[in-house]
């Protein structure tokens, strides 16, 4: 294992200390229980938005705390969901009285820990609503699975809900928009290498020099299938077609498209992937009106990428375009 760390058990705490030091104009760190909050939260009258999950997906979620996105984020240990006390404390810290939205990626651990926290919060009289993100088409949503994983859509849900809250929508409306974004979004991911959980010390899976994993999540878990590595053109076509077929996206649709790196794939490749993806979309009459290319929801140093499409309309585009100022996403005033 080659990492720029001190001791595996301190990675999360030490990285958060660095993050908050680098963005001291924007962020504060609560130590016990652990969460990162926007300095200006709670904003009077504004719905609070929090999210959380295992660490190792940076900039998600801690990098999305700030104006126009999250009011707080609860980082768990690497790939381990946070605990209810963190979530409860963060919820309390950002509630202005207008209630708090929990954005939860659909993993058994996250769901249960947020559920426990929500029970605690509601007992204290804080209004809590939930958006469950489950956009990964690699997983069948059936009785025989824990449902689809939450992946790339999380970034879009957090950005768009953040803008809606900023515009003064009330909790139920912000939650409804978040659910709508999730319903209109589909993603798929692939990996060329495994990642290494610091405390585990070795790669989560072994993979040959000529192999790739298709349909992976963001935790170094094996994907839906293993196959021979292909050209970017072929890989991206397979990925895009799975995503398009699922919603389905149709000719004439306008989409927000996220080409996301898993952490170890350089930008030169991600832009190449974006170029290939847009070709497939063009063929199908799908119009990419807002592109986002980079490392936005990662799996440590895994090499690979994911593709996320959101079927947009004018309202969602306006919310997307609204100013955002966080460590990981920034535009507008």
């Amino acid at each position, binding site marked *: 294992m080659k990492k720029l760390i001190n001791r595996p058990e301190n990675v999360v705490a030490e990285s958060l200390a660095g993050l908050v030091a680098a963005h001291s104009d924007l962020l504060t760190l609560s130590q016990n229980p652990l969460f990162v909050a926007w300095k200006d939260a709670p904003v009077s009258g504004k719905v609070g938005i929090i999210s959380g999950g295992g660490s190792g997906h940076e900039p998600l979620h801690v990098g999305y705390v700030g104006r126009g996105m999250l009011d707080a984020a609860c980082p768990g240990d690497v790939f*381990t969901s946070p605990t209810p006390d963190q979530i409860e404390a963060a919820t309390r810290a950002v509630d202005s009285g207008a209630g708090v939205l929990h954005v939860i990626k659909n993993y058994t*651990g996250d769901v249960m820990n947020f559920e426990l926290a929500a029970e605690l919060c509601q007992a204290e009289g804080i209004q809590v609503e939930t958006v469950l993100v489950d956009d990964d088409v690699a997983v069948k949503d059936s009785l025989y699975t824990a449902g689809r994983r939450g992946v790339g859509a999380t970034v879009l849900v957090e950005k768009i809900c953040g803008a809606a809250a900023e515009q003064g929508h009330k909790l139920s409306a912000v939650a409804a928009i978040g659910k709508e974004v999730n319903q209109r979004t589909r993603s798929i991911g692939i990996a060329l290498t495994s990642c290494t959980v610091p405390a585990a010390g070795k790669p*989560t899976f072994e993979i040959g020099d000529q192999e790739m994993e298709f349909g992976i999540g963001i935790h170094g878990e094996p994907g839906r299938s293993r196959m021979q590595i292909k050209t970017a053109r072929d890989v991206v076509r397979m990925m895009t077609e799975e995503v398009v077929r699922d919603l389905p996206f149709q000719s004439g649709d306008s989409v927000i498209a996220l080409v996301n790196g898993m952490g170890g794939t350089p930008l030169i490749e991600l832009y190449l992937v974006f170029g290939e993806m847009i070709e497939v979309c063009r063929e199908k009459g799908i119009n990419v009106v807002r592109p986002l290319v980079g490392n936005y929801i990662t799996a440590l140093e895994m090499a690979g990428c994911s593709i996320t499409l959101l079927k947009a309309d004018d309202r969602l585009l306006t919310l997307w375009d609204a100013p955002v100022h966080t460590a990981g996403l920034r535009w507008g005033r």
Partner: protein
Amino acid sequence: MKLTIDFFIAWLRSLRQCFSENRDYLTRLDSAIGDADHGINMERGFSAVYEQLEKQSPKTVEELLKLTAMTLIRTVGGASGPLYGTFFLRASAATSGKSELAVEDLVTLFEAGLGGIIQRGKAEPGDKTMVDAWIPAIAAVKACAAQSPGDPAETLQKAAEAAETGMRNTIPLQARKGRASYLGERSVGHQDPGATSTFLMLDAAARVAENS
């Protein structure tokens, strides 16, 4: 031996070492069909329980199990945190008012705990989860309780053996709950990490009982 608070304290303290020794083993199992953290999660949780027991002195089994529950919920995270946390929370309630447990009380304790796991996680038998270790274990405890007066040490030994069988029987199953379910058929052929940690917990209990 008697199932008093001393036994439970000794058992819970022993789990620190148990999960530190089995950390890599559990994590290796979780690498194959999960996210390579189950051993790390269990070690973190039961180290924290151990530390709590250095600082606090719960007076009753009920308080002790509740402290364990809250500590696990606050430190483990992931799926196993709320599940084992809920197990101990319900187990705590089931021992209310008792200062010594008979073998029948163990049935009540385990059944309450498992009920919590199932309520939280909605897993059914055969879904390839920790539930698949608890069910045969509890059946074994019940069988011992039927031959009164059951011997606690022997009962825990039988429970551990049954859990081990349940654990091994998860190997051919296809996961339908938790992270492993994302793998579909690729989850077949691997032993469930949570069923394994359940076996290890019961096995530790049996060993503490045997030596006390």
